[in-house]
Every structure is written in C-alpha cells, then in structure tokens.
C-alpha cells in the first residue's frame, strides 16, 4: 500500500495492530455487558433480546484474542506509516471529526460553511473570494434542495432558529 523511505520514523505495524485489536476487544466487552442487561437466557416466547448479541460479543472477544496473539507473535518490524503520512491523513480526519461533533450543537449548515472554508483555504489554498463563494454557496444550495424541494429536514442549530428558517 504505502512505501516508507529510508530512515523513516513512525508507529510500528505491530503496535497499531495490537492497539486496534484491544479496541475491538473492548467493543466486544461492551456488547457483552449490554446484552447481559437485555437478558441472555430463554424467555417466555423464545430467546430474550440479548441472547444473540451475547454470543456475537463473545465471538468478537475470542476473535480479538486470536488476532492479539498473532499480532504479538509478529516478527515483521515494519512501520505502519510514517509520521508525515499520518499527519496528512489526520489533517483530514481531525477536522472531519470536529465537524461531525459540532453538528448537533451548531446545525449542519453553519458547521458545513466553516468546514468547507477551512479545507478550501488550508489544503486547497484557493483565494478568499472562491472560498467565500463556495463555502457559503454550497450550504445555501443544499438548504434549498433538501429543505425546500425534497422537504427533508436536516439538523439545524441556533443560527437557523434565529433566522426563523
């Protein structure tokens, strides 16, 4: 997939594999806990709600255990990615995560304007006129298409409430 230059530095493949496996195992434990709450035995009309998710959770934890074992035994000292490459990817992931996280509070349109403007200016290096035109234009067009034409409500925030939309 990606090739590393000589003398590159970055997180090792082994570390990342172990970390991800542990996170998946944690997810499996959460599933098990949740399904125990819903009941894992046989009820009056058949298996209770948590019956199948319980075994799914167990399968997740078991598969993660095998993957962890394989990951720890790995002798390949290769890198997962260089820090430079990771920075490039994170430069997209982190703003996107902030965008999504802010949406319930600011609504879709305001968050989109800031998001589009940020990417256009920072990564795309377009001039401010272009940035303003697209960053404001796209959410407005989206509003018209979805809210007025398709009548599909999208998440709105305080600004739209103040404008009475």
């Amino acid at each position: 997939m990606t090739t590393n230059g000589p003398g590159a530095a970055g997180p090792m493949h082994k570390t990342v594999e172990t970390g991800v496996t542990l996170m998946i195992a944690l997810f499996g434990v959460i599933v098990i806990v949740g399904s125990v709450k819903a009941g894992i035995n046989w009820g009056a009309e058949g298996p209770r709600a948590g019956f199948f998710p319980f075994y799914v959770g167990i399968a997740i934890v078991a598969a993660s255990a095998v993957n962890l074992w394989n990951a720890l035994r790995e002798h390949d000292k290769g890198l997962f990615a260089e820090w430079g490459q990771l920075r490039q990817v994170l430069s997209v992931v982190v703003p996107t995560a902030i965008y999504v996280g802010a949406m319930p509070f600011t609504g879709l349109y305001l968050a989109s304007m800031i998001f589009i403007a940020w990417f256009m200016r920072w990564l795309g290096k377009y001039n401010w006129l272009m940035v303003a035109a697209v960053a404001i234009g796209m959410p407005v067009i989206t509003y018209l298409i979805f809210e007025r034409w398709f009548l599909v409500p999208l998440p709105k925030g305080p600004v739209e409430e103040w404008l009475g939309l």
Partner: protein
Amino acid sequence: MEELANLFHGFAVALQPFNIMVMILGIVLGVIIGVLPGLGGANGVAILLPLTFSMSPTSAIIMLSCIYWGALFGGAITSILFNIPGEPWSVATTFDGYPMAQQGKAGEALTAAFTSSFVGALFAVIMITLVAPLVASFALQFGPAEKFAVYFLAFCSFVGLSKEPPFKTIAAMMMGFALAAVGLDSITGQLRLTFGITELLNGFDFLIAVIGLFGIGEILLTMEEGLAFRGGNAKIDLRVVLKTWKELPSYWMTSLRSCLIGCWMGITPAGATPASFMSYGIAKRVAKRGNNFGKGEIEGVVAPETAAHAAGTSALLPMLSLGVPGSPTAAVLLGGLLIWGLQPGPMLFVEQKEFVWGLIASMYLGNLAGFSSCSPACRSLRPSCACPSASSRH
C-alpha cells in the same frame, strides 16, 4: 417462455419517458462518479439513495442501477488514462490498460474496455433473465432453516474468500452484527445495547455504515496517496474504434471464460473486484501471449473488464431472488429496497413483477446507453480530469 413475456412487459415499463430520462441521468452521474476517485459505485449509490425517496421504487432502482453501470464504465477511464483506478474493480485494468496508454494506444484500450464491459454485462443480464425466476421459484420453498443456511454460507464464504487472516474477518463480521443489533428488537420489543442513549433508539442506520466505510475510507486513502493528475492523452476517433472491434472477436475464448468467472463471482458473495483479479490471473496463465501481460496486451484489458462487469451485474441476481447481496454495491441497493418497503427474496418476483422486470429490462437498456455514450464522452472527460485536485497542491 413466461420470462420473455415478463421481460417485454418490463421493457414497456423501462421505456416510459420518465424512466428513460432517469436512466440517462443515472448513467451520466455514474460515469462521473466512476471517473472521480474517492467516489465509487457503492458510495455513489449510497449518497444518491436519499434522492430517490420521492420517486417510485421502479424509477428509483432504475436510476441507481444506471449509476452503478456508469460507475463500472467510468472506473475504466481513469484506470487506463491515469493509472488511477476509479473503482476497486478497475485496479486489474490498470495492469495492461495504462501501459497501452503510455504506448499511445489509449484509444484501443478504452474501446476494448467498454466493449468487453458491455459483453460481460449483457451475458450476465441474459443469464439473470433466464435463471432468476428459476432461482426465485426454488427459493420460495425455503423455510427459516434454509434461509439461515444461505446466509451462513454467504458469511462463511466471506471468511474463505477474504485475503485477510480469517479471525480478522470474523471479528469484523461480528462487529457488523453487533452494530446491527443496537436499538429496538423487532421480536421482543425490548431495547438492547442502547445504554440509555436516546439517539440509539433506532440503531445505526445502514447508510451511515456504508458512507463511513466506503466514502470516508476512500477519501482518506486518496489523501494518503497524494493524487496528482498526470494523464495520458487519448484520441478516440472512429477509425481506432473500428480497428479495435475487428481485433476483439479473436479473443472470444478469453471473453467467454471471463464472463463465466464473472457470473460465478457475482452470484457468490464475492463481487466485481475479486472477479477482475481472478480473471486477469487466469488469462495471464492460459493466454497465448500470457508472458506479455503487464506490458500492454489488449487481452489483459478484455479479461478483467468482462469479468468485473459480468460480476457486477450478476451480483444483482442473488440480491433480487434470495435477498443476499453478491457485491458491496448490491448490498447498498438491497438497503435501498428495504427502505422503499420492498422485501427482496422470492416473493419479490411474485408480488412486484413490474419492479423486477422493469429493473432487468433497464439493465439491457442502461448497458446499451452506457456503452454508446461512453466512447464519445471520453474526449470531453479528459479536460475535467486535468484540473488539479486539492491534494496535489501540497
């Protein structure tokens, strides 16, 4: 011969003006989506799925499947001209397509790609026409145990066909099951795995998973690879097209073999991508000029393209008749069916004849439309690909 009667009725449905317009719109959108890396067939269909809520299910699925065909065609364009596979299943096309473009034979490569795609898809559609009702009527006899067995087989073959170590595939599959279990249980009416969070009442929407997995993942992959559009030049004029058409029938064996591989891979839960690789690999070993593959052999373009399109099309067969998607895009279409309130499976052929046969008829027409609009469109697509993407300015 009841199928032929149904098929003609389907053509009548598909040839309504609105459906024709929707077909052409779908093909154009699909080619654009296929050409742009980062937007693939599966996520293109997923993103445009909500747009179809206002249409009737028949028109909606015609548009979505035409987007799919357009994406299948479009993926080949960037694979050959830019060595950037627009879709996962066009990766194998880059092996011989890009060398051909570099040698100045881009026109031949594109023509070969489109023609073999058309042939592959046509083969698969004919197969669907003949076989689908048989499979459906057979599947009507399925009880709960048989349905469980079909799904179990499908998921086991995911594990078997995947390149990843089996336990990773199992962990991922189980994660999918767990996410699907969140929310209101339809049998007991109980809430499970919501942990008191009200937003999780309806569980995780299928569309979110698809866009997150396919859309965001591909965008990040594109970021990582730092796109720079340095394209090859393609002159598609009629002479080149006719010359290539004269040359192609000599590869009928490769074509037929790829069609069969594609159909098989499409029906089993493998999809277009494994089909294209498998077909390329087998063609390389069996063909007369096999050692020349990778240096610009036209057969190396015919094999994966035929298989990928045959697989992509025949992936709809298990989706329609059994409710088991044969490829990621078929899975998204399946989600669309459920959203429109249609229950895929054998009952679809009995209760929703107009829908099913309208869809199958639109496959014939959509393919024809895609094939005939792609060749001239190539010339105008080059300027749009030449604009530098944001990441190339890094």
